[in-house]
């Protein structure tokens, strides 16, 4: 199966989807807080403009802000850094924060690798995520499991956005409290509206 240009989804949506399908739907379907998101993305991109597009150090060529696309997976996006070594291509994703409990960063990096494989026609065995806190690199091997997880998540993302349905919330204290869309999402289970009305309208003497 091959996607057309107009069906391509941003890599960032995949990352949102892995973190929480509902968060992804709130951003990409409900279009909530787009102005905040775009502001943030704009700022992130601006940071990159200040860097050279590529440079060569110690025999490694570093390409920055590399445009990515996969018609097979239906994804479009950018890689922060792609290192071209003599014998391999090595994507590196930069994160300001610390490693997350979910797989979202790994899947995002793997999706980048799958795009690069399709564009360059090479095999990419591994890459790395660089975390700002603490400043360290985490090596990531693109195992068959991670590749299959990435492909399945991508397919599920396409399916959800095609359906147009925002999935129901599943409250997870840790994840939800860290989410910027907490107030829009209202994830906590609520009582039935009929019970609420009955209670609120209960007759009581003034």
């Amino acid at each position: 199966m091959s996607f057309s240009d107009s069906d391509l989804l941003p890599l960032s949506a995949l990352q949102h989807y892995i973190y929480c399908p509902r968060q992804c739907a709130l951003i990409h379907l409900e279009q909530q807080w787009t102005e905040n998101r775009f502001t943030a993305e704009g700022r992130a991109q601006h940071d990159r403009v200040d860097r050279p597009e590529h440079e060569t150090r110690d025999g490694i060529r570093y390409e920055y802000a590399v445009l990515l696309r996969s018609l097979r997976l239906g994804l479009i996006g950018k890689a922060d850094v792609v290192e071209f070594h003599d014998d391999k291509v090595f994507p590196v994703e930069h994160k300001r924060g610390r490693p997350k409990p979910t797989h979202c960063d790994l899947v995002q990096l793997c999706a980048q690798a799958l795009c690069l494989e399709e564009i360059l026609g090479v095999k990419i065995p591994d890459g790395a995520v660089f975390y700002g806190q603490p400043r360290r690199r985490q090596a990531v091997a693109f195992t068959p499991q991670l590749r299959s997880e990435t492909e399945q998540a991508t397919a599920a993302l396409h399916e959800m956005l095609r359906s147009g349905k925002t999935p129901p919330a599943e409250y997870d204290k840790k994840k939800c409290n860290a989410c910027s869309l907490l107030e829009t999402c209202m994830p906590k289970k609520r009582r039935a509206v009929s019970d609420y009305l009955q209670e609120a309208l209960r007759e009581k003497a003034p």
Partner: protein
Amino acid sequence: MKKHLNTLYVTTQKAYLHKEGQSVVVNVEQESKLRVPIHTLDGIVCFGVVSMSPFLMHHCAENNVAVSFLSEYGKFLARIQGPVSGNVLLRREQYRVADRSAAASAIARNILLGKIANARAVLRRALRDHGEQPALKTAENRLSQYLRRLQQPMPIEELRGNEGEAAASYFAAFPQLITVKDAAFSFRGRNRRPPTDPVNAMLSFAYTLLVHDCRSALEGVGLDPCVGYLHADRPGRPSLALDLMEEFRALLADRLVLSLINRRQIQPGDFNDSAGGAVSMTDAARKTLLAAWQKRKQEEIIHPYLEEKCKIGLLPHLQAQLLARHLRGDLDAYPPFIWK
């Protein structure tokens, strides 16, 4: 969600607003009188002869600051709108529900339950504070009857009929809520086009502010303010904004007007009569009302359905969100705001 809830109301005639860096600057006669950082605002409302630079308009649209132009007396004239926001699928669902009479009247019925319960709460509070008064007690009983009647589903026309009767009962008792004994503030029923007495002039002005807030709350969650459920479509009428404000009329607008009169913050001299019988508020009176309105919006309450603390000014946003959640299938029905 906007946390600041600060609306900049500009009532000074011939004021000119423009952008300087990230701030809104208000100039009066070439002199800058006020400077507000844009990120602390969620709305700008200009009354009468107030102008604004196109650059500030762009900046407001980009920062999701609602800008409205009203006549000096609060009649809506125009607003600045950025790109259509929100989810087109949500708006389609809003329209589909409007075309399905059972689903539409279920939402309208819950809105009405909220409206009447909140009107009754205002009467009950007066009964508690000022003792038994037959007129108040009668109206309170009537509203309770309407609430019981509305427990059953009914077609939209019947709902509107009940609403009209409930509103008449409530406004029949309204004079009892005015405790200052001054002929200027005697109230003989609601009139609005134009208001012909001071109380109606104040009510109309407060409702205008409420519509403005409800409209931007709906636009903020991506709903179309012109397709409503209780109010039928009519070109140019913001029917859904009128629906949304029903729950807040008594609580936010009526009580504010009553307390300004009863505490003598607004005096009989605060009004202008025109030859045609229309009565309007003076500049000073409008400023008093706006300041009280703005202050009220910062007060905190517990939202009865969400059971979370929130500012009163956020209520329209929260209710708009709950309505969107219902339309998108998250909630089994629309939970109106019911004041306890």
